[in-house]
């Protein structure tokens, strides 16, 4: 067995257990809410249409968006309820809420359809022998609708298991950890392990529910009890497993976050190793959504992660104008300090957006700056990551240079560089610290008009981070130059090293420039 596969399989039980727990719990919650709602909808015709419309509307919200929306909503709810109870905005709670909402539609719709599908002649006969409405529901409508209702539960189960892979970006461990990290670090084995785990889990839940469905149809309660016990046992194992495997510890636990791309995994691994050497227990929250990481830090659920000054400038401060690196960094840190977050300091390199083109094209057309490109942009296509075209920087660049591409295409950042070298697009919005710029023979164009803001990587500490964190991470401040970061990223993205291996190499390259005064 390859070491890569062995490493992935080692992490599988915990992810599988967490995935099972969130799936089953939210499925049960979804059923517990939707079946009574379905009965209400059947009984009171007036609420039926609006109810199905609202639940159907929830379903149209893309899964990832629904999960990501839960975080700011819970932060707001937490602010209101703060004196009474702490509301965690990351992790299991937002996932359970979103998955429960997602599980509702098939169960609700099938409950209504199942009950309304019962032969009216049977209902009249049941009334004719003297059953009350309630008895008709209990003895006739629900038992006869049960197979249809259970079919809805099975549909919901498969949806929920699939959508639970999206729990990773909001900080809940799931099989999505393999998929998100694997896609970003080009680790196909990890992606396959995540997919196989999710498929296996979906099949297992579906099989258990199929047995229950058959038991109901053939009136074999023992089968249903058996399948229910098997499901419950697997959830119990899922709950118990992480508690068992986690060594009991009274050391402070520091939560280290990362966003979903290679550089972030490498830096989080580096931070982890520095903390562990200072006797700190570390918990990782990897692949967090961009705004979710900052929300988590502000809410005290993350203790440390690396963000970029330009991102915070635009998204947190809402600024659209371009300013110099030190100005941006100072403004961002001042604002974060007032929010309770400490800027430990810049890491030393910048991971800016920059337009890159194929080296051969650059030579042919004589492109070296954005000014050169703007003359030839008409009729050409540009690619960028999923968020860039929505960001104010893009409007600023286009305005500054009069850039007018024929087409804008978005790619996952994993595939962006390939899109350029495979001539899917003529230019891409690359990251300056990315090792794949050189590996794919791309040339980064200069920005003589300064339209793209600075993106200094900066270490952020949450309000509850213990003081040892600042001590442990001090060697990191100002000590990673862009060449070192690019090489570390390249080792993962091009050579197939793990983020841990790249972090170990990067640690040997730390070179503090001027010590902080």
């Amino acid at each position, binding site marked *: 067995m390859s070491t890569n596969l062995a490493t992935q399989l080692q992490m599988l039980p915990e992810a599988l257990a967490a995935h099972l727990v969130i799936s089953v719990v939210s499925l049960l919650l979804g059923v517990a809410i939707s079946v009574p709602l379905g009965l209400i909808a059947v009984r009171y015709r007036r609420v039926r249409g609006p109810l199905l419309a609202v639940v159907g509307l929830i379903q149209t919200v893309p899964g990832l968006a629904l999960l990501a929306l839960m975080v700011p909503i819970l932060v707001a709810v937490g602010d209101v309820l703060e004196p009474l109870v702490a509301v965690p905005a990351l992790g299991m709670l937002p996932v359970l809420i979103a998955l429960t909402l997602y599980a509702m539609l098939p169960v609700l719709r099938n409950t209504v359809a199942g009950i309304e599908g019962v032969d009216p002649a*049977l209902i*009249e006969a049941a009334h*004719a*022998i*003297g059953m009350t409405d309630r008895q008709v529901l209990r003895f006739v409508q629900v*038992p006869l609708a049960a197979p249809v209702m259970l079919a809805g539960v099975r549909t919901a189960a498969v949806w929920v298991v699939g959508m639970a892979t999206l729990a990773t970006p909001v900080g809940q461990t799931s099989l999505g950890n393999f998929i998100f990290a694997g896609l970003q670090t080009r680790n196909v084995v990890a992606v396959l392990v995540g997919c196989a785990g999710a498929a296996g889990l979906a099949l297992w839940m579906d099989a258990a529910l199929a047995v229950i469905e058959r038991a109901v149809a053939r009136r074999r309660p023992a089968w249903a009890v058996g399948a229910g016990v098997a499901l419950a046992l697997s959830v119990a194992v899922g709950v118990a497993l992480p508690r068992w495997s986690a060594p009991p510890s009274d050391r402070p636990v520091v939560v280290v976050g990362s966003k979903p791309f290679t550089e972030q995994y490498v830096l989080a691994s580096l931070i982890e190793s520095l903390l562990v050497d200072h006797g700190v227990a570390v918990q990782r929250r990897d692949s967090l959504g961009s705004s979710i990481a900052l929300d988590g830090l502000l809410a005290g659920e993350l203790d440390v992660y690396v963000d970029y000054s330009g991102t915070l400038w635009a998204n947190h401060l809402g600024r659209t104008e371009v300013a110099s690196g030190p100005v941006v960094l100072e403004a961002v840190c001042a604002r974060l300090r007032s929010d309770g977050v400490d800027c430990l300091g810049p890491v030393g390199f910048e991971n800016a957006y920059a337009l890159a083109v194929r080296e051969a094209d650059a030579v042919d057309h004589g492109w070296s700056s954005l000014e050169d490109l703007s003359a030839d942009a008409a009729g050409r296509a540009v690619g960028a990551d999923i968020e860039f075209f929505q960001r104010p920087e893009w409007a600023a660049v286009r305005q500054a240079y009069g850039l007018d591409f024929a087409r804008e295409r978005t790619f996952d950042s994993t595939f962006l560089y390939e899109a350029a070298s495979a001539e899917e697009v003529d230019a891409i919005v690359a990251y300056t610290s990315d090792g794949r710029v050189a590996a794919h023979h791309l040339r980064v164009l200069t920005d003589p008009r300064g339209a793209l803001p600075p993106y200094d990587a900066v270490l952020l500490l949450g309000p509850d981070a213990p003081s040892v964190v600042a001590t442990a991470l001090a060697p990191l401040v100002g000590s990673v130059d862009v060449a070192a970061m690019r090489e570390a990223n390249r080792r993962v993205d091009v050579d197939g090293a793990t983020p841990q291996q790249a972090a170990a190499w990067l640690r040997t390259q730390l070179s503090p420039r001027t010590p902080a005064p």
Partner: protein
Amino acid sequence: MIRLHGVSKRWEPGGPLVVDAIDLAVAEGEWLAVIGASGSGKTTALKMINALVAPTAGIVTVGGRDVTSVSPESLRRSIGTVLQSVGLLPHWTVYDNVAAVPHLLGWAEDRVDARVRALLDDVGLPAETFAERGPADLSGGQRQRVGVARALAAESRILLLDEPFGALDPVTRDQLQGLVRGLHDRLGLTTVMVTHDMAGALRLADRIAVMSAGRVLRIGTPRDLLTDPEHAEVAALLDAPRRHAAVLDGLLR
């Protein structure tokens, strides 16, 4: 035992009267057949007796009491009903279907058991063979027998039959008709049967009410109707059985 006083029914305000101010009285121990074409209002009139349908106007009494003075459920539990569709619960066994009303009334289990077994014997479906079967395992005639047993399970003194023999083959129908009339006589039931089978009505009923367009055209004993139909429509209904009888007479002569 059962009286309908000036009873009318329209399904929606301003709609047509499906039952138009009818008066009917059924004496204790009597078997009344209500006959008429589809849409004549006969089934609606029947369903007003056990409050499955509420009259728009008029009063229905059972045993001298206005049916609206008791809860519809307790009224229906005291009246045995066999509907056209039978309506056996498909997820319940024959036994559980017959035991349904006694269970709803909270009878003790041994009393229920004795009653169900006796009734299944009465309708010719011995419990040893049929109790645990599901309705899907029965023939149409057997299902009707279970329906009759269920209707009588709670010792009802009144039996309402809505076209219960319509879908059966002639031999089975004949057997079942004889069986139910026998039970009616033995148990001293008061029976109202809705049908469009005039031959069956002539054979089974003590009196026949002929309905058309929501009204009772003619009510009387089979002999009354045969000797003086009064209406062309009644005469037409009697025509078919008469011709059958004449053909049979001719063949035997």
